[in-house]
């Protein structure tokens, strides 16, 4: 059950299978919609090449014909033709580029969209494991590498290969022996290319991975800037960053060395062959087995191989980079989410606003790489409309437990049930519409207050929003410069911890969910505000089933019953006063003596 995402190799551990052109072929579904454009580009490119080769022919005809005959009036038609073809070449060039722009950008945009959408649906466990810099470098650097390949290089590879083949065929036809000799002598070039191509592939992959690592380092240094400043660790971070940047530089340089060698071989070897051809050709002419004109034609033709061969060196590099980019992309796209909709989702009976029953039925949970269960054989039954407080020492598994309800993580044993239906049998949409969670960390996005409150429910009405704000005592939003339309979050107005927490609470109670999960929802509030929020919250809690993680007695008192979580199990359930009376562990957790000395005593007693 926990396979899939959890088993996918962690980023950076890419030493595995060698990526190949097959990875590029997998891009086909994204290319398919634009295949018309791609074929069109190929046709235009071929046409442009024909036009290009016609131009010198016209020039030759002009020089050998009217100009040689001193016939000025005879020049006009040919000059006109040359002009026409000259303009045509530029126009075809422009058209091809235009088609390339449309298709390659569209393909890039589609890929980016699909990548983002896929990532959003991968489970939290995946995101905990993958540094976001690695994801970011894929969605920016790797995608533009692919765009360049698709729009530009793919067409040129085909065109170039065609030119090379045509020239070779012509060489053989012109002088079979010499031509075949050239082909045979050129063969080592293919081997060398293949060899360096493989090496380049591995190096390109490494460089791209290191680009991702660098991005991760940048992200952390920026998000953690306050900690860095507070401890004066600028030097340490700069050293780390310099290390990352040096590794990237080394990787880029080894790429560069491979490329320099490959290009030099591709550029030099044909020249050496040409020297040989010249020598033997001249000898053949001297011995009368070859005409002088044929030799000149042969050499001229062979010179035409130079540019396409040089270009191949460059195209090969681009292809290998695209292969690596594609492999990096599919590494993520191939990760299947293990938290998915069931094939035949069950439905919850009853009206949408009726509180539901929430059960933990022999629930166990273990992190993928952990040796022991975090939660073990846990039993808890919350009746419809009941509010259950969850109390336990730091690290007892409270936060994980809350994440099981809305399936941010899946149980590894047992089941969480809502109205008797396993949460895994509900569609994610229905489940997450039924369950609403306020996390201990109040995440705000850089968007308007309204957007932050409604998050996944853009259809929320103004009344619903007003009610949620009232319950969470978040009336301060009306005082903001643009009220609900004020942008908050990192790119907007910064709010205090208490304000953020109240917005997170408002977000959770919006639309009166059937099951409400609150993870320490009042920790950042001052006593006064806390009391107000509690009063308003009681109204909501009466009409919904709630699981509230609490550290303080005041929060616990919102609940009908309390469950004590210790060592991954529920060790006691009862009302606050019952547990205070009967359970020493609970008493120790919740009793807050006023005299500090008494605190110390209590603590010593525990230790």
């Amino acid at each position: 059950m926990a396979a899939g995402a959890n088993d996918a190799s962690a980023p950076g551990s890419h030493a595995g299978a060698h990526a190949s052109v097959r990875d590029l072929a997998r891009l086909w579904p994204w290319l398919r919609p634009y295949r018309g454009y791609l074929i069109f580009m190929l046709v235009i490119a071929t046409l442009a090449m024909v036009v290009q080769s016609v131009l010198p022919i016209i020039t030759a005809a002009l020089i050998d014909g009217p100009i040689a005959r001193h016939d000025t009036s005879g020049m006009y038609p040919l000059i006109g033709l040359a002009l026409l073809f000259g303009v045509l070449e530029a126009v075809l060039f422009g058209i091809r580029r235009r088609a390339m722009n449309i298709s390659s950008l569209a393909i890039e945009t589609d890929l980016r969209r699909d990548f983002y959408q896929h990532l959003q649906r991968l489970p939290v466990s995946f995101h905990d494991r993958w540094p976001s810099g690695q994801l970011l470098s894929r969605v920016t650097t790797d995608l533009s590498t692919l765009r360049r390949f698709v729009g530009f290089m793919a067409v040129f590879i085909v065109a170039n290969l065609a030119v090379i083949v045509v020239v070779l065929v012509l060489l053989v036809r012109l002088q079979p022996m010499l031509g075949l000799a050239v082909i045979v002598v050129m063969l080592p070039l293919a081997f060398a290319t293949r060899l360096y191509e493989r090496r380049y592939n591995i190096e390109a992959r490494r460089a791209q991975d290191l680009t991702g690592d660098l991005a991760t380092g940048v992200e952390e240094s920026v998000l953690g800037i306050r900690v860095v400043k507070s401890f004066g660790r600028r030097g340490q971070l700069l050293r780390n960053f310099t290390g990352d940047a040096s590794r990237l530089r080394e990787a880029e340089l080894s790429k560069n060395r491979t490329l320099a060698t490959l290009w030099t071989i591709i550029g030099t070897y044909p020249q050496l062959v040409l020297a040989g051809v010249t020598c033997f050709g001249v000898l053949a002419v001297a011995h009368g087995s070859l005409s002088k004109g044929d030799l000149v034609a042969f050499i001229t033709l062979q010179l035409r191989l130079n540019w396409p061969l040089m270009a191949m060196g460059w195209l090969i590099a681009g292809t290998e980079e695209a292969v690596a980019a594609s492999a990096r992309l599919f590494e993520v796209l191939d990760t299947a989410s293990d938290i998915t909709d069931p094939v035949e989702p069950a439905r919850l009976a009853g009206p949408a606003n009726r509180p539901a029953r929430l059960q933990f039925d022999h629930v166990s949970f273990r992190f993928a790489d952990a040796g022991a269960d975090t939660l073990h054989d846990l039993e808890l039954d919350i009746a419809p409309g009941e509010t259950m407080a969850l109390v336990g020492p730091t690290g007892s598994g409270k936060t994980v437990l809350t994440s099981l309800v809305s399936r941010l993580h899946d149980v590894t044993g047992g089941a969480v049930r809502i109205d008797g239906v396993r949460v895994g049998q509900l569609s994610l949409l229905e489940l997450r519409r039924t369950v609403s969670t306020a996390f201990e960390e109040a995440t705000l996005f850089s968007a308007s207050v309204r957007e932050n409150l409604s998050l996944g429910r853009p259809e929320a009405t103004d009344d619903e929003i007003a009610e949620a704000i009232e319950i969470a005592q978040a009336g301060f939003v009306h005082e903001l410069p643009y009220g609900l339309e004020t942008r908050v979050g990192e790119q907007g107005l910064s709010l205090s911890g208490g304000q953020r927490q109240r917005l997170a609470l408002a977000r959770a109670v919006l639309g009166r969910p059937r099951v409400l999960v609150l993870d320490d929802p009042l920790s950042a509030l001052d006593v006064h505000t806390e009391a107000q929020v509690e009063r308003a919250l009681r109204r909501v809690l009466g009409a919904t089933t709630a699981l509230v993680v609490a550290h303080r007695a005041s929060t616990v008192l919102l609940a009908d019953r309390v469950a004590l979580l210790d060592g991954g199990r529920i060790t006691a359930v009862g009302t606050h006063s019952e547990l205070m009376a009967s359970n020493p562990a609970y008493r120790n957790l919740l009793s807050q003596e006023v005299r500090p000395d008494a605190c110390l005593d209590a603590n010593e007693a525990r230790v």
Partner: protein
Amino acid sequence: MSTELSGEQAADPALERASAQALDQTSAQAVEGAEQPPAVPVGQWHGRYDRREAEDEPAPAALSRPRLDTEARQLLLELIRPYRRQVIILLIVVIGQVVATMAAPLLIGMAIDHGLPDAIDGNYRTLLQLTAALGTAAALAGLLQAVFLRRTGVVGQAILFDLRRRVFDHTQRLSVSWHERFTSGKVISRLTSDVDTLRELLDSSLDGLLLALLNIVVITVLMLVLDPWLALLALAAMIPLFLLFRWFSARSTVAFRRTRETVALLIVQFVETFNGIRAVQAFRREPRNDAIFEGLNTSYRDANRTVFDLHAIFIPGVTLIGNVATVTVLFVGGYRVAEGGLALGVLTAFLLYLREFYGPMEDVAIFFNSLQSATAALEKLALVLAEQPEVPEAASPVPLPRPTAGEIRFESVEFSYDPTAERPRTVLHALDLCIDSGQTVALVGATGAGKTTIAKLISRFYDPTEGRVRLDGVPLDELSDSDLRGAVVMITQDGFLFSGSVADNIAFGRPAATRAEIEEAARAVGAEEFIRRLPAGFDTDVRKRGGRLSAGQRQLIAFARAFLADPAVLILDEATSSLDIPTERAVQRALRTVLHGRTALIIAHRLSTVEIADRVLVLDAGRVVEDGTPADLIATVDGRYAALHTAWLDSLV
């Protein structure tokens, strides 16, 4: 002329964008079908906000500014300057390569003209010599090419490395207030996407460009020698070429700038989504995010389209000018040959040279395009580099007396987060405050009373607008950064963790600490127990920002980190809010020992935390309204603290 041009610029790109969008929409509809959510325009979800957005989004007037910032060019030159010797050597190498390459056709011609007759006569010496020369030239060209490619790689990577380090170091030097304005997503975008653009420029074939330029110079001279009049005709094409370059330069500057801005927005959305993935999934925000991302993705594509379409006119335009010029030369030259005024050989040579003249011109154009793109990115980077830290480090720092006592004094401190605004919101008003060394002071007050501001001033995230803050009598802005950071440490509520092990994160407080000291620090704050229970104990990887750890656990690690740092002044800003009561007690017990002989400032809503303070300051709207020991304040009739205390007692049940 110039007014005409700029008028065109104002009207045209908009038109072009609009038509491009119309075109894209139809094609998108055709292929995507109905399954994709419609893109949401930014205006609908982004909300309104007026703050000066850290110079990044230029005013509308600046957007149409066609010339690239001189700062960008200057930055590029600055980056290249340390390597100018290598660049000159590279130039020489490439000239050698050109000469060696150009020798080949000449040698082949000689082989046929001279080697062949000799060979027919049975004398193979000339042929063999020429073949050897041909081989040598090829080998030399290859060797020089290899040297050139390797050395450009080294220089290019060195420049990139310098730039990365420089921007990184600079952003880290900039004050917290700058980071709050500029926002993390944009810094990330500068350091990744924008730097990448320069990499693309350096990757683009510099040898091609140098070869092209050399070719152009050499051929210009040759043509002028051959026939000045025909040469002038050929060179006349430089005028439309120049105009084309200028047109492209003006247009593409604006367009490239736009791609930099749209990609930054895209990156911000991307980073925020995946840093907040729990909320995204739990609240079913995926479809809404899909729609928002679609909008950003599309505007990035459109920005790219504008650039690429300019490119699709520019490059073929160069080809067109070259072709038309060649035909013109052919026509005029042909006419003169026909009339007998010009030798046929000269015309043929001219035509061959022109091919070599205009062909490379396209390489120059392509390079120019990369340069424009990189300059747009460099412009953004130059703006970041031009930012001055708002809390600059002292030029000639005053040493902090040792041992540091930790006495803090506020002298008529006034503070506003936006002092330059029309009506600045003053957070602190003429605050005079002395915190004796070794004193533990609790700050109490409602949200917005100025508690956190005081903490931020002591840790010098900000400087006061008026007045001074002194540590042991030395104004904070006269201390060296290392003295200040060694003496004052602040822990905040969020407990940020870096990737790495738990031990690494604690050691962040004191990198030189031994393992035993790290474990001791964890033990002191009561974090050892849960750390030992993690899969690999202290060596457990905390994963992305401690995704697996609860807020309480992260706070404990942050605490251990601060204990290890061993500062003279410790500031706790809601640093224990997510701890359970016994753990908080353990932390407090540890604090009693640890804070002995240290100055401490505690901000907390829970009065339980305040109990250990020697002194309580009640703040209201930026002013201290009550000041005394907890016991005294509780005893004050109608006192604010007394009221808070009563409310708190009630909440305890």
